[in-house]
């Protein structure tokens, strides 16, 4: 695709056909946005020019020329501030809103060309989605919520209840099948949301800020459980978040959005080490400043220089803590494991330059 070149957008495994491929996707809001977009596009220019012309006519381009591919089994995170268009992008891919222009294919099937009935079929069998505020049906018990995709697919009551038992157990809700959403905590509610999205044995999984509405502690716990589930199911995942720490923790690759545009796509390391512009750098800034990188990452294991053993660092210390400990030293400092065995040394200068590089 012409529009998709030159973004450093490479798949983890190029050999396979991508599970999801999105090209030239636009989401323009306003009355009769489709023809307004066509007129603006005919005038030519870059995506930014087109969006600018549309804005002058009172149209809002929530997603501008989005292009990316997600490999089978990949966890693809879309990150951006609120209003950057990330949720709208996901709704365009899942056709909860009709995109103005572009191409979306899921597992080789052209989704935007699919009929309504076909779309319903796809949602029952292949696509699962989790929502920020859970989207649970208040009048249904946990088990009925989870089994809903099977129910609308025409499965009998007993059969579908049997079938979702495993999923309910997997998300840790065994014993609460008869409870109603109002009787559950936020974390439990999202477990129901996750279980429901998995009930149809989906191969493509969309998660729209699934943990943003939760307390930090619960959030971390659910992130870990989510990674476990993911390892077990090996689905293709598109995950939306506004939290860079979450993105770095979970993602195989991250797409960063601003004002409806994808500004960079890359692995977490790419994003941190080679931000394309100040906007991305600004995101990465808070995170890596010594708080997430560990002593182990800059330790020299086979250093035979005389090490200063007095402060004694450990490999799982963060750079920040390490810096505080050996502020006064100029020579390398020794790193020990819990048993007190010497592992290697760290040069305080390396700590300083690692922190500086992040800036």
């Amino acid at each position, binding site marked *: 695709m012409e529009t998709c070149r030159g973004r450093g957008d490479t798949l983890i495994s190029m050999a396979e056909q991508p599970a999801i491929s999105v090209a030239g996707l636009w989401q323009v809001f306003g009355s009769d946005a489709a023809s307004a977009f066509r007129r603006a596009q005919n005038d030519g220019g870059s995506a930014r020019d087109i969006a600018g012309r549309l804005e002058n006519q009172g149209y809002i381009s929530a997603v501008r020329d989005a292009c990316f591919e997600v490999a089978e089994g990949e966890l693809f995170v879309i990150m951006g501030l609120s209003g950057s268009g990330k949720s709208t992008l996901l709704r365009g891919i899942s056709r*909860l809103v009709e995109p103005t222009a572009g191409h979306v294919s899921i597992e080789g099937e052209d989704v935007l060309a699919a009929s309504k009935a076909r779309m319903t079929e796809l*949602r029952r069998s292949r696509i699962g989605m989790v929502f*920020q505020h859970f989207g649970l*049906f208040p009048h249904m018990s946990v088990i009925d919520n989870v089994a809903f995709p099977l129910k609308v697919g025409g499965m009998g009551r007993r059969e579908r209840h049997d079938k979702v038992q495993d999923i309910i157990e997997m998300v840790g809700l065994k014993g609460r099948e008869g409870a109603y959403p109002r009787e559950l905590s936020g974390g439990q509610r999202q477990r129901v949301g996750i279980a429901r999205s998995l009930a149809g044995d989906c191969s493509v999984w969309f998660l729209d800020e699934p943990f943003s509405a939760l307390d930090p502690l619960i959030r971390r716990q659910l992130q870990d459980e989510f990674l476990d589930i993911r390892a077990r199911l090996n689905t293709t995942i598109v995950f939306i978040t506004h939290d860079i720490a979450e993105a770095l923790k979970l993602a195989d690759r991250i797409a960063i959005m601003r004002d409806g545009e994808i500004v960079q796509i890359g692995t977490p390391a790419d994003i941190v080490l080679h931000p394309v512009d100040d906007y991305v750098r600004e995101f990465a800034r808070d995170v890596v400043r010594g708080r997430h990188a560990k002593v182990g990452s800059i330790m020299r294991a086979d250093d035979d220089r005389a090490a200063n053993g007095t402060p004694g660092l450990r490999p799982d210390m963060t750079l920040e803590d390490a810096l505080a400990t050996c502020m006064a030293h100029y020579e390398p400092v020794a790193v020990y494991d819990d048993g007190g065995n010497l592992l290697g040394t760290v040069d305080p200068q390396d700590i300083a330059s690692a922190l500086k590089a992040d800036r």
Partner: protein
Amino acid sequence: MSASRELPAASMPRLPRGQLAALLTLFTGAICLLLQDYAPWMVRFPEAWTLPATELVGAGLDAVLSAIKPVMRAWSWLLSFPMSWANAVLVGSPWPLIIGAFTAAGWYIGGFRMASLTFLGFGFVLLSGYWNESMNTLSLVSVSVPLAVLAGGSLGILANEVPRIRAALLATLDAMQTIPTFAYLTPLLLLFGFGPVVGLVASAIYAAPPMARNVILGLERVDPEVKEASIMSGASRWQQLFLVEIPAAGQQIMVGVNQCLMASLSMVIIAAVIGGFNDIGWEVLLTMRKAQFGQAFLAGLVIVIFAIVIDRLSGSLALERKRHDRRVTWGLLLAGAVGAVLLALTGADAAPEGVFSAAAVAVDDSLGAFTAAHGATLDGIKTSAMFYGLLPLRIGLDQAVLPFTWGFQWTSAMSLWLFAVAILAGLGLAATGRHMAGAGLVIAVGVVETGIAELPWPFVIVGTMALAWVAQGTRLAVLSAALLGLVLISGLWDRALLSLYLSGAAVVACVVVGGAIGLLSAVSGIAWMIIRPICDMLQTIPLFVFLIPTLMFFQIGEFSAFLAICAYAVVPMIRYTRHGLVSTPPEMLEAATSSGATPWQTMTDVRMPYAAPTILLGLNQTILYAFAMLVIAALIGTTGLGQSIYLALGQADVGLGVSAGAAMAILAFVADRLAQGFAEERRKALGL
């Protein structure tokens, strides 16, 4: 035009909209007053200029009605089946079974409290001796409510599915609720003929809009993520609607059912004026006509208790999810059945004679004694209210002040003096910066001197336009003028002014009294504890019942009607005033207190301005309530449109009934839009 002439005009200070409107109104009033002797057409719209609207409407409607009559008669025939079944079940079943069934339902829905309320309520109905009449009423309700729920629900779903027709549908619902209840009884009477079906259809029509409204609201408020989740689960549109959206909106829809029930009950009772069905409303009407106020009061009480039981029962169905032990439910039902069998064995299968009829007679007698003993006082209250309040408002000081009433004769010199003083005071107010108050004072004095019913028509129309312009803008101004113009050329203008006068007087009284009570309730928790249940009850009582007590003490006449309207219309004023005042954000109050404001200063300078939009909405509700009650109050003697509508019903005059109903709806509509416009304007000004 040269530039030099434009400059000073541009630099002239421009008058604010409100002042310009007030001046315009004043100016029109002054012209009309000055020219009344030379151009009498400026005061009274000449009859020659009016169109025979009532005849035209009558002829048109007659044609339409007779065309669809066969279809409607077929409908009527169809409807008579479920009606006779419901009647057979409710009247035919032995009373212990009915009471048992309702008590069981009460238990299932609301536990011990609801069960005992239901049991006591139905027990009272039984002992009152109006059991069969009440069951007749209930059977009408039990057929009309499913009809209304079905019709309203379908309309609501339709509006949800087809957004394009939504605005039109909502406007129609508005109209259905503004057109006075009696007005559509007349065409229905022609369509369906005398009999209970008219009441049934009328109550279904009246009860459908609240249902539709709540369905629309409920579906609209379903969490968007819930809707999306059902789409992403692969539900078809039909499955989304019936498996997810409607159940998720269940609570709001049950509120709709509750309102639907209450509206239906209210209308079924009002429809008793047509007669032909031995229901409880008819009983009230009959005893009222025979001046047996004790019995009328008792029958009215039965209606009130009925209304309260039905309201609380369906209300807790909407609000509470918890359902109670089924075993007790079955037990209560069984107890009812056993009671029925025992009753049959003893051979006394009919409902017992009223044990309260003696009490009713006693009430009647003591009431007679009371009115005889205090007749002078009651008459005094009534005549002074009439002479010093209502009459001057209606026909103006210039005609109301007579040696017979006030002890002296009003002269034109007095009018001149009054105007001179008012203008001076108005100028004084304007000079101290209160321009609007000054203009308002002069206008008010002018209105009181002339009387609302005698106001010159250009003044009324220009004044309304000016208000509408200030409240919302040019569109509403033009619309109001056009609608009022319609009333003017239809020849119903005089009657419309009479209606305006009585409802206006009632609204003013409600604003003063209701505002004061609302204020009291806002500052004193104890006062609210006492006032709240009274408000609850006043809002549950069907309109019709308000007539009974006023009639008992003040006989037929305008004053009784005025009191009945006030009693009904005051409630929203109280509620909204209190709600507005107590919902001031706490940090705002803390800021006022820490700035050193006294409680009274906090009230006048912080809480009242903040509450203004809410209070204006209360005023809006009060106006609509007053118009609704005005028509019902025609039963006990009002003039104006209400009376015309009531007379038209008696004479089966569709033209008069419908045109007068439409005129009434126009008045209510314009008043409603004005108050809403002002409320909206205030809300915007406060940034809410």
